[in-house]
């Protein structure tokens, strides 16, 4: 019973953490939904431990924890891949911004110089 309580408190804390990040606008909406679903699933599975055994029997996995590990690993690999993709995209975008900024800075300088020359004439 003790471990049940610990698990319940833990999963509730995770859910609360996700909710708090969302509330403080630290997590953009597209990730928020994903993690909220994960958090809620976690709580549900903790409250009804029988659920996991029943699902694993249904899909033919003999050890319930193995099902949990399998789903968890697949999910995490997916998340890591997605984050790498997102990071590459962001890097590409910031690179372009840096290039644009440099070009504009030079053009502003050139324009200022030209204006100064025109005024002196």
């Amino acid at each position, binding site marked *: 019973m003790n471990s049940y309580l610990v698990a319940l408190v833990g999963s509730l804390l995770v859910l609360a953490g996700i909710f708090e990040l969302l509330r403080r606008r630290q997590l953009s909406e597209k990730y928020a939904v994903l993690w909220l679903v994960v958090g809620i699933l976690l709580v549900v599975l903790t409250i009804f431990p029988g659920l996991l055994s029943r699902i694993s029997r249904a899909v033919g996995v003999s050890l319930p924890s193995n099902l949990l590990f399998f789903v968890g690993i697949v999910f995490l690999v997916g998340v890591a891949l997605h984050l790498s993709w997102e990071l590459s995209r962001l890097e590409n975008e910031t*690179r372009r*911004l*840096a*290039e644009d900024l*440099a070009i504009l*800075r*030079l053009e502003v300088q050139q*324009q200022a110089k*030209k204006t100064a020359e025109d005024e002196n004439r």
Partner: protein
Amino acid sequence: MTGTAGTCPTLYAVPNESSPERALIVVPAWNEEQTVGDTIREIRVALPGVDVLVVDDGSTDRTRAIARAEGVMVLELSYNLGVGGAMRAGFRYAVRHGYTAVVQVDADGQHNPGDVPALLAKLAEADVVIGTRFAKDDRYRASGPRRLAMVVLAKVMSRLAGAPLTDTTSGFKATGRRALPLFAEHYPVEYLGDTVESLVIALRAGCRVAQVPTTMRPRLGGQPSHRPLKSAIYLCRATFALLLALVRRWDGAIGEPAKPQVTDITDEVVL
């Protein structure tokens, strides 16, 4: 895959085919305070009247101040983007300001500005011209795995180009008016992208690539990487970069117009 070559896609906005030739020397420089000044002065002597653009790739030393003092144009990148990123910025500047050719001259003094006119002349028959280190004399020698990588790359690229290319990792390159818009939009920014992958992209877009023999000099400063382990890593990365370049799609494949990524920052400002 490269088709029968011939012309670069005309779908990219090309400055008037008959507009006069305007060359821009682009000098990517990352912490090259010891050599950038000499390089600029040398370019000035060898190529009087040609515009020079130093791209300061987020240097933490006095590179940009020295370049400024020499009175050339300086693009100041906010942080280090690598040679590919620096060159892409240079290409984009060139396209925005109506240049018809860009020649990359490294700030470490390895490239001889005296060879630039030969590269530019060759642009009459090609869209990208490589200044190669091996064709003329063999003072620049690589060895071990690094050499193997260079030989393999040369073989593969020559086959793709349908012309002999002996030095595909040379940074000394001239880009003509038809390849410029392509590079301004798609110049690869990853490792070796500025050499191998850029050539693959040009070839896949139907550009002609040729080479001109040049004399490379030992660097004025900085350390070349010739240790065996480093060379082995280089071999692996070069192979990987080549394979990646060959299988990669890049948006703006032939036949569809290049879509502007970050939109044109301002309307064309020609100063």
